[in-house]
């Protein structure tokens, strides 16, 4: 086998593409009817093919919007403090605007070295997030707030986000408040009761769901019903997705291994149904944030691929499992979002160590994903989507 090291970038790209295509030709979607928790599950190994044109959905990468819209942004959409716990870029109703986070290094750091080795001392300023809104009409960007990130955008235009109490500093936990603006031009109102390491996640009607990142990166899902009205919805959990009407949330508990998924009433926190992931006998240990709920189906990223859960008829069941093929370059699917129907979704494909990211458009019926061609080492890509419900799209 020819080692990739030493080849030109173009040759590497061609080699990787050829390998991917070859795998796509030989990979066969495997249908496995199994009986678990009294349901029949379609288990497929995903085939990834090169897209001949742009894939569906909206993505941001390297200061640009790609996919359904094309635009240049004021900076690279990036949110180091939250990863993709919440989307890096969120379209407003009708996709007229895009709210996104950027990150400015206040001091360049080498992640291979310790802070002390770089002369960085406790309290030294290292970075600062900024929250922006891009208007697709005139193509204009406006800073909503500095030292702020992670926006949840409600259908009426209200924006919730985290506003830091200080810039990001070495050896110091970055804390902030959850603030809400009824409109971009309105003054922010603090909703959280005290600063913490928050991430604004999504609106469920008029209730804001947010994360608090605790010790050991434990994620607690919180509900805010108004200023100072904060309650714990579920500890040690991920928000997978919200129901289309915004009244229910699918939460993935990580309190045990394997974990579980539960439908939870947002209004009072009652658990409607729970499915233990271990009972499925599919090797699913956890489900994670960044999923999508349409009709009675929820697409959830898991440790083995994308799981499609059915959440109707008083129970949660696994309908389909799209497993990552370990022989392909794409070893992870994140942020799966249903498109206009529940037969297709867009997602981000994460390549292995040293690799990059790929925009994917997947057909659930054929278990085939089309991958947007990207040069190796190109900018990190993120799907742009709005997890808040109801959507209120007027398009």
């Amino acid at each position, binding site marked *: 086998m020819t080692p990739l090291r030493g080849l030109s970038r173009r040759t590497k790209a061609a080699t990787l593409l050829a390998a991917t295509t070859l795998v796509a030709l030989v990979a066969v979607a495997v249908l496995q009817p199994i009986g678990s928790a009294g349901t029949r599950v379609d288990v497929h190994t995903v085939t990834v093919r090169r897209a001949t044109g742009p894939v569906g959905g909206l993505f941001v990468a390297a200061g640009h919007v790609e996919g359904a819209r094309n635009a240049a942004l004021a900076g690279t959409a990036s949110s180091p403090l939250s990863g993709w716990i919440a989307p890096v870029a969120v379209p407003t109703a009708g996709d007229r605007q895009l709210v996104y986070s950027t990150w400015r290094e206040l001091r360049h750091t080498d992640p*291979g070295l310790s802070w002390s080795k770089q002369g960085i001392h406790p309290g030294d300023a290292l970075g600062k997030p900024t929250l922006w809104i891009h208007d697709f009409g005139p193509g204009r960007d406006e800073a909503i707030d500095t030292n702020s990130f992670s926006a949840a955008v409600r259908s009426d235009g209200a924006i919730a986000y985290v506003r830091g109490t200080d810039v990001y500093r070495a050896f110091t936990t970055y804390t902030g408040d959850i603030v809400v603006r009824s409109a971009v031009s309105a003054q922010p109102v603090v909703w959280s009761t005290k600063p913490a390491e928050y991430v604004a996640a999504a609106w469920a009607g008029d209730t804001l769901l947010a994360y608090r990142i605790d010790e050991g990166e434990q994620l607690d899902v919180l509900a805010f019903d108004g200023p100072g009205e904060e309650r714990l919805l579920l500890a040690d959990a991920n928000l997978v997705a919200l129901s289309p009407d915004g009244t229910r949330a699918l939460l993935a508990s990580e309190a045990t*291994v394997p974990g579980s998924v539960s439908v939870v009433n947002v209004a009072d926190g009652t658990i409607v149904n729970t499915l233990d992931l271990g009972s499925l006998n599919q090797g699913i240990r956890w489900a994670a944030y960044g999923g999508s709920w349409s009709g009675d189906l929820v697409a959830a990223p898991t440790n083995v691929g994308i799981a499609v859960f059915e959440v109707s008829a008083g129970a949660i069941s696994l309908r389909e499992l799209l497993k990552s093929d370990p022989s392909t370059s794409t070893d992870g699917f994140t942020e799966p979002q249903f498109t206009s129907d529940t037969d297709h979704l867009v997602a981000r494909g994460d390549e292995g160590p040293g690799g990059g990211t790929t925009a994917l458009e997947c057909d659930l019926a054929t278990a085939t994903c089309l991958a947007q061609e990207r040069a190796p080492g190109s900018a990190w890509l993120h799907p742009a989507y709005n997890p808040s419900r109801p959507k209120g799209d007027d398009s």
Partner: protein
Amino acid sequence: MNTRTRLSLVVAAATAAITIAVAPASAHGHFEFDRTSNLSSSLVWVYYPSSNPTAYYSPTWRAGSGDSTNCSYVGHGWLPLGWYDVKGHWDHYDSIIKGLATQLQDKACGDGTLRTQLFIHTKELAYYGNSCETYCFDSSTDYYSNGCIKLSHSGYGFPDNIQDAHWWWHNRDGYSFHGAATADDALYVHS
């Protein structure tokens, strides 16, 4: 840890001593985490008992990190590669994490995502007791974490590796402090 156990550890260290031709990272020892899998990576204490560049090693402990090999997956991915400073060490930490706990500096993954709130710890109570399910180490799946380095704790058939690692940290060119304080270059994560 009783005297016999300590003695056996010292003997094991002496037996495991390996000469390498690199200068120590600092006057103190440091942990090295060989990041090979979420469930079964390894942690070892490396120290330099004299001024010459001869590294001595503790026994190697099985250790876990994360439940995904995607570093950027906050709350799931294993911890990033590189050198870390320690920002605190506690014998009886008593919050979400309990017991022996060593807190690490934040570290960025390849795409810039910051991993925060990372510790070296186990599943035990503040004074080393057990309370299942949350605070006992009774299964190999307990090596999984949200990103932290996890060592085993005694009581359910697993060795008390968190105590052993703690002993080496304090007694073999390590650090004597407890509480919030920094230790430079105290952990190296490699693959």
